[in-house]
């Protein structure tokens, strides 16, 4: 991607990101572009998990960087760049989901494309699935959850926010966070059915 030597350690990478942000704050568009390239996958991942489909994830990801650019002079260096972007992306996604809930209009397509690909190769759930199929099933199942359950679960599972942080982010009580996450997991359990056969990494659970 870039021809210069990649920074190696996590500290170096983060220092590099901060350096790019400082340059961007002075108007260096090329630096901002590098910054975008560094974080686009991570930001897209947040968007796609929260929204459940590609088009919306793209919107969120793009908009996150645009907002970040507009707010560069307000960037507080105590945040890591990732945290900063994640907060913006989460907020945008949650706002959008909330708007839709109120308007009750259709969002972008769910991962139907994925479903169609899978349909032709649907296997007995007890059979061993290759990693990709298993992942697609998960993505599909996640996308099929009610928006507010998915948001809480995603923030927990992928962003590892505490219940209290999630409560603040979604502006709901902690108890609601707890029940949404719990229900999300139970729904997923139903929809995912039997787990794929694989060597368990942990000691047997039953």
């Amino acid at each position, binding site marked *: 991607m870039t021809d210069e030597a990649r920074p190696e350690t996590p500290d170096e990478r983060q220092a590099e990101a901060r350096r790019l942000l400082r340059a961007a704050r002075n108007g260096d568009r090329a630096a901002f572009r590098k910054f975008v390239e560094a*974080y686009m996958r991570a930001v897209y991942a947040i968007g*796609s998990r929260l929204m459940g489909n590609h088009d919306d994830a793209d919107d969120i990801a793009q908009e996150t960087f645009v907002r970040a650019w507009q707010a560069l002079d307000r960037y507080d260096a105590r945040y890591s760049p990732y945290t900063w972007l994640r907060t913006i992306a989460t907020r945008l996604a949650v706002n959008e989901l909330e708007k839709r809930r109120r308007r009750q209009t259709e969002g972008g397509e769910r991962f139907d494309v*994925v479903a169609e690909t899978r349909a032709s190769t649907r296997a007995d759930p007890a059979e061993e699935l290759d990693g990709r199929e298993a992942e697609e099933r998960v993505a599909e199942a996640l996308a099929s959850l009610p928006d507010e359950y998915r948001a809480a679960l995603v923030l927990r599972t992928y962003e*590892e926010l505490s219940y209290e942080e999630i409560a603040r982010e979604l502006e709901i009580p902690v108890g609601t966070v707890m029940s949404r996450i719990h229900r999300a997991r139970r729904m997923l359990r139903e929809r995912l059915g039997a787990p794929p056969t694989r060597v368990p990494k942990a000691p047997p*659970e039953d």
Partner: protein
Amino acid sequence: MSQAGHVQDRLSAYLDAELSSDERAAVERHLHACSACRDELAALRAVEQRVRDASPPAVAPQYWESFAARVDARLGEPARASQPAGASWLERIVTWFVPPGRFGWVRAAAAVASVTLLAYVAMRGFRAQDASIQAPLRTAPRAVTPATPETRAPFAQAPTQERDDAKLPGLNEQPIARFADEPELADEASESRKRSDVQTRAQPEAEGFGSKPSEGRANALQRTDAPPPVGDLDANAERLKKESAPSAAAPRSSATSEEPRRQPATGGGLQEREKAARELREVADEPSAADVLRQEAAPAPEAERKRVLQSVAELDRTAARLQAKQDADVTLAPDVVADLVRTFSAAALAGDVSAATRARESLARERPDARTEIDQMDAWRAAEALPNAVGRLQSPTSNRGNETSRIALRALDALVWPRREEPSFAPVVERMAEALEAASPEHPELRPRAHAYVTWLIERAEDDAAREHLRQRLDALSP
């Protein structure tokens, strides 16, 4: 099936180590005795693991190749220009509605008010139409081609591919790249994440340049102390004893310095960070130009909707009366105006947008002096098309150019063009340019507008390369 004493509804919180130490102890005591709840916990843990292991759905490499360029194209102004200062939400809405002269085609002030009212009416009628328009919309894959200059005016060309070709979003007849297969830092981190699991994850993951969070990872240290295998309750008891001493006050250990919200409460420091977090959220909450436009096209409440429906029906009845008069007296010259008004209102009531448009076009051609009637038709038509046009315009991924009607684009043009200098409208200006360019082949009268937008963008271009791309688009506009 939650009898007294069962802990099922707390199991997720237990799994996530979000229970107080007392609660946790209670749950563990119960688990020791209850196999049903143990099974449930195991199932939850399995689900959590599967979800955690799953990478986000893959997108084609071209998507990433063009991503940064697309962001760049939306940036418009240099970093310093922030949202227009002082323009309150209310002020912005008001400026839309002010001079009727701003909407050249709407005369009466009442018509301006009815724009939003009619929008609701129109949307009801338009839904059927919408479905048929949306269908081709949705089968065409997103036109995510690499952002080369030639393909940057894509909408007229791009989505001729069949849906079958696009197995993955963003795919464009290229081999599918897995998110996890790419030799990127982001994926190193996700690979190493796969190797760990909820229980044994102990190492804080490197916060890669583009990888998953590290702040949360540092807390994994804390969390791995959470549920060990259920059978091992002696270890639990040990751990409980250890934990109840030092960390009771701050169950979330302060991770890295970059995670302000996790700092233990130290008075001023925490408040500052809370404030910073709030400001950060406000960045995301600031209304965008798209929001402003959407507000413009908000549907009307039920009562007003009824009133508007009535006025359209009234129009229809008047026209019918005129028609009947004509029929009765064959010596009367046919009243084109009445005829077309009748056609228009019938179509409007039926929600047939194209027929309504055709009637309007005919009237404008044959009796351009019938300004009042034409304006009324325009008001209705634009209001109906407007919400959909706004909706499509603000969503940069939808295939908007071709199906957005000419009148809707003209309406948007009237709204957007006067505000093209505002930084927050920069992305909207970009999209208007694209939409107008895409509509020009079918509606040549829009070409001058497309020309104006692209010329504007050329003047604002950052560098020669961008200017060159835009000039090519300008050339493409000339027939």
